[in-house]
C-alpha cells in the first residue's frame, strides 16, 4: 500500500509541476464553462424548451465526450510511455514494487487528477443554487456517472500507455478505443429492435444520460467497473510481459 501511495504522490507532483496539466485544466474549464453559459442563456429565453444545465453538462452534449476522449489520453499518455522513453521503467521494474502496485499507483494518480478537474465544475452547481432550485440528487448521480466513466477511460489510457513506446502512440491508441466505445451508440440508432439489444447494453451515451437524470442502473455501474478492472488487468499483464523481455 505504501508503494502505491509513493507512486501516486510522485505522479501527482509531476502533474501539478507540469504546465501541460494546467493547459488541460484550463481547456477543460473553458469548454465546460462555455457549455454551461450557453445553457443558462438558452434557459433565460422565454420560449426555451425544458433544460437541465447539469444534465447537459454530464454527457448531454458532444463537448462532454470530446473533452473526455481528448483529455484522458493526454493525462495518461506519459505515465508508461515516457518512463520507457527515458529508461526509468527499468529502475521501476527492478525496484521492490509489484506490477500490480505500479499499475494501480499510476491509475490512481491519473484518476485523481481527472476527479480534481471535475471537482472544479461544482462551481456551476453553486451558481445554479444561487439562482433557483437544483435537484442535488440528480447532480450527485451525475457526478457518480462522471466518476465511473472516468475510471473506465483512465484504465484504457493506462493500458494504452503501458503497451506503447511512444506517448503519441499511447494517446492515439487510447483515443481510438474510447472513440470506438462512444461510437457504439451509432448502432443503437440504425439497427432494429432485435439486433440493437447488445449495443444498448454498452451504450455509454445512454448510460451517462441515465446518471445525469438521477437514475443509477446496476447494469451501467457493473459494466463500467468491470471494464475498468478488465483494462487494468490487461495493463498489469502487459507490464509483467515487459519485465521478462
Amino acid at each position, binding site marked *: 500500500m505504501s508503494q502505491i501511495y509513493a507512486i501516486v504522490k510522485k505522479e501527482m507532483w509531476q502533474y*501539478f*509541476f*507540469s*504546465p501541460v*496539466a*494546467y*493547459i488541460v*485544466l*484550463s*481547456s477543460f*474549464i*473553458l469548454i465546460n*464553462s462555455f457549455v454551461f*453559459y450557453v445553457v*443558462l*442563456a438558452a*434557459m*433565460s429565453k422565454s*420560449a426555451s*424548451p*425544458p*433544460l*437541465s*444545465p447539469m444534465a447537459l453538462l454530464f454527457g448531454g452534449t458532444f463537448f462532454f465526450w470530446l473533452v473526455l476522449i481528448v483529455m484522458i489520453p493526454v493525462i495518461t499518455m506519459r505515465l508508461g510511455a515516457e518512463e520507457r522513453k527515458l529508461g526509468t521503467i527499468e529502475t521501476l521494474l527492478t525496484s521492490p514494487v509489484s506490477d500490480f502496485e505500479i499499475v494501480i499507483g499510476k491509475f490512481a494518480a491519473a484518476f485523481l487528477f481527472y476527479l480534481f478537474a471535475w471537482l*472544479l465544475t461544482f*462551481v*456551476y452547481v453553486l*451558481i*445554479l443554487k444561487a*439562482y*433557483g*432550485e*437544483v*435537484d442535488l*440528487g*440528480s447532480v*450527485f*448521480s451525475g457526478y457518480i456517472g462522471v466518476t465511473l466513466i472516468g475510471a473506465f477511460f483512465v484504465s484504457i489510457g493506462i493500458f494504452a500507455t503501458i503497451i506503447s513506446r511512444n506517448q503519441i502512440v499511447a494517446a492515439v491508441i487510447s483515443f481510438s478505443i474510447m472513440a470506438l466505445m462512444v461510437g457504439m451508440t451509432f448502432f443503437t440508432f*440504425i*439497427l*432494429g*429492435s*432485435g439486433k440493437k439489444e447488445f449495443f444498448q*447494453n454498452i451504450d455509454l451515451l445512454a448510460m451517462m444520460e*441515465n446518471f445525469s*437524470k*438521477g*437514475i*443509477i*442502473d*446496476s*447494469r451501467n455501474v*457493473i*459494466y463500467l467497473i*468491470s*471494464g475498468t478492472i*478488465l483494462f487494468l*488487468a*490487461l495493463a498489469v*499483464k502487459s507490464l509483467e510481459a515487459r519485465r521478462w523481455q
Partner: protein
Amino acid sequence: MNRKKEILKGTNWSIFIILCISLFVIVNYLSIRHFKTFDMTFSGEFSLSEQTKKFLKNLKEEIEIYVLLPVGDESYERVERLLNSFKSESPKIKVEFLDPEKDREKYEMVLKKYSVTTPNAVVFANKERSKWVEKDQFVEYDFSNYQFDGMAKVKSFKGEGSFLNAMYEVVDPRKPKIYFTIGHGERRDFEENNKGIYLFKERLSKEGAVTEELQTIGLAEIPEDASLVIVAGPQMPFTKQEEEILERYFERGGALFLFLDPVIEEGKEMKFGKTGLEEMCERFGVELLDGLIVDPEASLLAGRAQTFFGVNYSHHSITSDLEKNKYPILFILARPLKVVDAVNKDYKSETLISTSSAAWGETNLSNLKDVKKDEKDHQGVLTLSAVVSSKGKNKSRMVVVGDSDVISEGAFLSQLGGNSIFALNCVHYLVEQEERISIPPKEVSRQSIVLTSTQLITNFVILVVLFPFIIAVFGVFVYFVRRR
C-alpha cells in the same frame, strides 16, 4: 529453446486474455439479467409507486410488452425508462421496442395480431389476453404555447398508472359491471356547460369496466351482476321501493357510489327538496344535511365561495395519493354531510374529505347572491364525502359525495387532476380493486432559471473568462518556478 519460450508466453497471454474477457462477459451477462435501478432524484421522479412494485413482485405470469413508437418520439425515453424499472422489479416482464420503420415487419404483425388501430401505442399481452394503451393515455400535453411556436410540450407522463391498469387487465380479466341509475334527473353523458359525465364513463371503460344505465322504478331487485351502482346527482326523489332495493343490494354485499347534490325545489319560495335516499344513508351512518356549502378559505374565485377546493383528506386508501401529492378536488354548490353512528352496528362510517373550519352550510335560499354565515347555518368543519364499510362478513361498501360536479366533464377536463383521481379511486375501492387505485401523473420536470442580461454577462466573465484564466496563470507560475 527461445521458440519454445515464445510459444509458452503467447499461450499464457492468450489464456489470460480469454479468461479476463470471459469473466467480463459473464459478469455483465448476469448483471443484465438481474438488475436494479435506483432513483436518486429528490422528487422521486423516476420511482415506482408501492402498488406497482407490489404488483410486479407478485406477478406469476409472463407479460409481453410491445412498444410501438418511433425512436425519436417525445415519449419514447420516458416509456423506455419506465419499462426498464418494471423489468428491474420482475423477470416476468418482457419488453420489445418496435420502430415503425426499422422493424416494419414485426411492427405490422403486432398491429394485426392485437388489433391495434393506432400507430403509437404500447401493447400488453398475456397468453390470449391483450390490451393496448394509446399514446394519449400515457402522455398529457400542454398546448399553452401552441399558437406561438406550433409545438405542444409534454406536460405530464401518466404511463405508470395506465400501464399498470393494462397489466392488471391482462392478468385479471374480470370486468366490473357498473350501473348508473336513471329516471330521477341524474347527470347524463352529455349536458350543457360541461356538466355531462361521459368522460367519467369513458375512463371507467378504459380501465376495463362495463357501464350500463339502470331504470330502478318498478325493479324488484338490483341485477345480480352489478359490481357497483352509481347515483349521479338525482334532482327528483327516489321512491320508497327504489330506496329499499338499493338498501337490500347494499346489505347483501353490494357497492354504492352516491353523488347527492342539494336538491332545490323552485316554487313561490325556494326550499330544499329530498333525494329519497336520506333515510337509507342515515341508517348506515351518513346524514344528508340540507344546505349549500360556502368555504371562503378554499374558494376558487373571490366572492364566489360556493365553488371551492376540498383539500382536507382523512387517512384512507382512496385519498392517500391525493393527500401525498396535494391534489385538490373541485366542488361546486355542494351539500354538507354528517358522519353519525350507523343504526346497524355492523357498519362503520367515516369522513373522507372535509372543508376548512371557515366553511358553513348555507340554509337560507332566499338570498344566494349575498350569502352570510349565521347561527341557523351548519357550522364548519363540514364533511364533503364519507365512506361506509361493513365490519361483518359481507363486503358492502358505500361512498357518499355531496356534489355530482365532482364527476362532471368540466371537472375532469380541469388542469387540477384531483377530481378524476378521486372518482376513479372511489370506484376501484368500491369494486374491490384497491390495487388499481389511480396513480397520479408525474409532471415533467422543468428547471426554470431566468437570468437578466446583466447577470448573464457577469456569469460569462466569471465562468468563461476569469475561471480558465486563473488556472492558466497558475500554469505560467509553475512553469517559471520550474525554470528557476
